[in-house]
């Protein structure tokens, strides 16, 4: 079974919680309940939307963020695209070093890469694709980290 969902959000961080809840509701309806979905995908999607609105679109209220979600079997793919000029995802400091762990920011992309099975940026750097694979063993009681950065 393949389910597709497309949302366009105004560039307003107050919409993120509601949008994530809606996407999660649709994904949960398609997949068996799994903690990997509840935590990893929820946090990853929140981070991607937050980055898109705050940094990609630079908090410009005239801009928008597009979410495209495909659920195909046990694989969930979400693409989040902003209207900004993009950035270099390979030039992001490790937030877990002693010098960086005390900083207030810089954990978003790290969390995405830690929690999702795949995180891919387009060449421009204004669109990120998150992939989560749910296995039969992803029953409540298990939390998994995905591929590390």
């Amino acid at each position, binding site marked *: 079974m393949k389910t597709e969902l497309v949302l366009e959000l105004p560039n307003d961080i107050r919409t993120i919680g509601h949008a994530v809840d809606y996407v999660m509701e649709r994904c949960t309806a398609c997949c068996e309940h799994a903690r990997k979905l509840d*935590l990893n995908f929820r946090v990853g999607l929140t981070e991607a939307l937050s980055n898109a*609105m705050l940094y990609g679109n630079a908090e410009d209220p005239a801009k928008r963020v597009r979410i495209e979600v495909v659920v195909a079997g046990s694989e969930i793919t979400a693409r989040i695209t902003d209207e900004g000029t993009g950035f270099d995802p390979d030039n992001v400091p490790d937030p877990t070093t002693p010098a960086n762990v005390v900083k*207030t*920011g810089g*954990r*978003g992309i*790290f*969390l995405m890469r830690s929690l999702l099975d795949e995180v891919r940026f387009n060449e421009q750097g204004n669109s990120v694709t998150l992939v989560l694979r749910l296995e039969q063993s992803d029953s409540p009681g298990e*939390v998994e980290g995905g591929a590390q950065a």
Partner: protein
Amino acid sequence: MAFQVTKENDVTVVAVEGQLIVGNRQELKQKVLEELENGERKFVVDFDQTGYIDSSGLGVLVSLSKKIREQGGELRLASLNEDLRTLFELTKLDTLFKISDSRAEALKGL
């Protein structure tokens, strides 16, 4: 989602209901800083009713902890479920905060 502020003797306890994310982090920051300006120095943030935290939520906790320490106070975290603990462990923020299993434990010795 909401933040419930209560007092346990001389400790200010803030319960996070729902989620602590980019959309509501400033509300938590404002509430805690108001208490700090009013002279409160001991804080516990209770996550017993919290679904999830994003990086902005983690960031505001780091910021508040720093501001409270600068005033000679202390911020402790309590009642993180397994998922939330995972986020603190992944980001190594478990090394930065005193994390207690329950509100009662966090209040002990504070």
